[in-house]
């Protein structure tokens, strides 16, 4: 576990190298210095034993140097050693300055501004190493595969106009599957503070669900069925939104799945509402330019597209207003609006159809029709007359958002679940989503 003093060591070095960069700027040069780092414990489990453990300490600083019409960037490791880091910053500044001269002018370059300062420190002391034995103890009677990841993560942003943001947090997640033969129940226990009783309850709940998987499997033929998509399944659908569906640039460049929604040639159900909600609190409100998002940014309201996520770069190019989106114009803290369907009424309203806990490997199959394909995964069941009858053999589907979030959407649950970001590519993800369940009248299974 990183101590407060070792985060301070990196933070101090980041402040020092930023000062060096800003002091050495010439004439019309401007600069941003971004920091991203973590100190993480990763423990990978299989069959309720440890497959691999790795402790990772990394911090990277990114210098963005720009003139009135050109911009370039470099990223490199920050060690926390003042002498090494200062020398490296001077070297990189020189390299970027030499590169800047060779670049063509960018008419859509965003001029830097001071977007203010903020400081959010959500770090805390937790002894993650001691949790590993508890995980093994609670899951040893099951066939468990999973990952524990925990420790501090931190992000900083400063620019030569005086802007200064900092965000740090000490979260953890245990992302697991409990298997019975080839069927499994998926679970995530996550947060900032570990509570033994809550964890044990979570595992107990998953173990109980396994009993439903022990029933003989039902092979459901491809076709259209009524489905209930639990929040874990809807999470996968919302992840697909990151692939250009809500991006201004994707819309303008012909690669947006919701183009027909924006052009009003297709509609969604008035039940559908999507917004960025930074009150969830798991990701910083500032982006890599230091622009601070509103707490709530509505994207779809009552089925209508209100606005795309629009970065300042897109705003410059298309002469629009930016909304503090990140460069990729993907959601960072998305929330789907809840509806009226009570938890106790889900199976009764589903009546006969499929209860789907998770989806897998979604991808667009016909972008302009917002059509996507994917698989069912984990605990999915055939339901008859409001009763769970049998687990199903996994099915492939091919559906359109204009249908399943359109006329075929029957109801949305009156509760939502917080789905923490558990991606660990390159570094641990910040953020999470707030997601309800959906009842859909017809869902097209193909294989």
């Amino acid at each position, binding site marked *: 576990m990183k101590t407060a003093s070792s985060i301070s060591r990196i933070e101090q070095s980041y402040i020092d190298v930023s000062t060096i960069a800003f002091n050495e700027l010439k004439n019309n040069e401007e600069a941003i210095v971004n920091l991203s780092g973590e100190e*993480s414990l*990763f423990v*990978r*489990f*299989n*069959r309720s*034993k440890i497959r*691999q453990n*790795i*402790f*990772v*300490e*990394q911090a*990277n600083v990114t210098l963005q140097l720009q003139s009135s019409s*050109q*911009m*370039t*960037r*470099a*990223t*490199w*490791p920050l*060690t*926390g*050693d003042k002498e090494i880091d200062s*020398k*490296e910053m001077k070297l990189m500044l020189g390299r970027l300055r030499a*590169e800047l001269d*060779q*670049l*063509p002018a960018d*008419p859509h370059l965003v001029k830097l501004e001071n977007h203010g300062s903020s400081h959010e420190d959500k770090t805390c002391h937790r002894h993650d190493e001691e949790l590993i034995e508890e995980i*093994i103890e609670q899951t040893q009677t099951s066939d468990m*595969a*999973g*990952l524990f*990841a925990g420790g501090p993560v931190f992000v900083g942003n400063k620019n030569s106009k005086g802007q200064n943001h900092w965000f740090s947090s000490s979260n953890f997640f245990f*992302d*697991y599957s409990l298997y019975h033969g080839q069927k*499994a129940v998926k679970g995530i226990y996550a947060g900032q503070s570990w509570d033994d009783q809550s964890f044990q309850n979570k595992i107990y709940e998953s173990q109980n669900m396994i009993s439903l998987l022990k029933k003989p499997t039902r092979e459901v033929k491809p076709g259209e069925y009524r489905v209930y998509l639990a929040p874990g399944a809807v999470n996968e659908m919302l992840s697909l939104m990151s692939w250009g569906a809500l991006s201004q640039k994707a819309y303008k*460049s*012909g690669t947006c799945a919701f*183009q027909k929604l924006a*052009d009003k040639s297709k509609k969604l159900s008035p039940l559908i509402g999507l917004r960025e909600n930074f009150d969830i609190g798991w990701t910083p409100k500032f982006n890599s330019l230091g622009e601070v998002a509103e707490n709530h940014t509505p994207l779809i309201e009552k089925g209508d597209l209100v606005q795309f996520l629009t970065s300042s770069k897109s705003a410059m190019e298309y002469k629009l207003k930016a909304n503090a989106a990140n460069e990729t114009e993907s959601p960072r803290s998305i929330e789907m609006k809840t509806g009226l369907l009570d938890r106790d009424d889900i199976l009764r309203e589903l009546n006969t159809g499929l209860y789907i806990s998770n989806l*897998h490997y979604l*991808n667009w*199959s*016909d*972008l302009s*029709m917002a*059509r996507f*394909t994917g698989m069912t995964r984990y605990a999915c069941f055939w339901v008859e007359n409001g009763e769970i009858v049998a687990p199903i053999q*996994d099915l*492939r589907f091919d559906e*359109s958002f204009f249908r399943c979030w359109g006329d075929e959407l029957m109801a949305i649950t009156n509760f939502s679940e917080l789905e923490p970001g558990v991606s*660990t*590519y*390159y570094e641990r993800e910040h953020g999470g989503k707030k997601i309800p369940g959906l009842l859909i009248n017809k869902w097209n299974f*193909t*294989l």
Partner: protein
Amino acid sequence: MPIVNASTNINALIQKHRNDADWVGLKLISEKTTFRSVRNDLPEQNHTQYDQGLRVEVLIDGHFGYAGTSDLSSYGIEKAFQKAIEQTRMWSKFKIHSFTTEQRPKNIGKYSSQIQKPLDTLSTKEIMDVLRDCTQKMNVSSQIVNRIAKAMIIQTQIHSVSSDGGEQLQDFSMVNLELFATANKNNDNQTRSAGFQNQIGAEVFLRHRLFPVCESIGKQAIELISAENCPSEKMKVILSPDQMTLQIHESIGHPLELDRILGDERNYAGWSFVQMEDFGRLQYGSKLMNVTFDPTRYGELASYDFDDSGARATKEYLIKDGVLVRALGSIESQARSNIAGVANFRSASWNRPPIDRMANINLEPGTTNLKDMIEKLDRGLILHTNRSWSIDDYRNKFQFGCEYAQLIKDGQVKKIYKNPNYRGKTVEFWNNLIAVGSEFETYGSPFCGKGEPSQVIRVGHSSPYCLFDNVDVFGGLS
């Protein structure tokens, strides 16, 4: 000249720490990745990432554990040793398998990508000018609304040493160059793309090689916006090598990864329909199907001499005459399963532990040339270039989409279709392989995702055009 500036003497470090555990390995990875892109003739991205870190690996009581740090000060390095040793000792009692030093073969050697012209010999301006010119060449019509040319230029040095005297130094030079042209008509958008993924030098940026490709994808994007949707029917299909890349990757590479079969990946990427008893028995595909693991083929993206365990890489048949004969299993997975494997214990970088990965997975050429393949076809499609991919967590039921379809009737190309997709089940699909082309093309990806914690790895795939029978094809709704 070092890629990254900090200097760390890992030979001295291994001497200092060689007795800290039953076996100690160090890996110093330095990587420079430059992203350059141009969109619609204007600069879009110029970003260079310098990454450097040290991974400490220790064997204690039969358990391998790791620590990785980008803090190469003496404070950071000593902390990494301390964490690796403490945590591995603490958790060895929960280990899934008792390993020995046999899983870390002592090898000494060097590898270097074979290139004609070092990547550093081209200036920023020269590269940006080529990319700009590429986007200009795509501008074949006013209906082209978006043109992108981008390059990911990678130089990597991996220096590995171990407490028993093993030492490998591997040096890679790689480029992923991608071109995209999007056309619009009546609110319909269609994109054609092309890519080059190789271990290669600055010779990849040759205008006379790139410009015909740029013009071609521009023209084909224009063809697509006036094309009909692909019909829905079962028919014969020829897959182009750039689509075969995806077909091989998803429905051969991943299901044969032995760590998946052993269950390591069940909580993330998934398990596999392949069972231990299938090796040597399962008729995976038709007798025309010969698939190799081949990191020795120079120029492909995942060529190397040694994997992360230190094992020397050799070419091996995974599927021979359609029969599954060998797994994509590293030396650790081989010890756990007693199944024959390959040298594929690979990590994304110093901050991730190695796992079983693909490297270059190739479909070996057959005897049919493309011209004959087309001329003998009464009715069928040629599908080009992947644009959508999805397969289940057991790697069985797949659905893939392509950018561009050509209808063949009576041995001739008759028309173009847009939005072609096809779906199937892995073993059934490969058993319908009825002709394999005689000439291969090479592609790959720098972004194959897997593992917990997750990591991306570079993979290469070579394949000829291949003809399949009875493929379930369908189109779009737009």
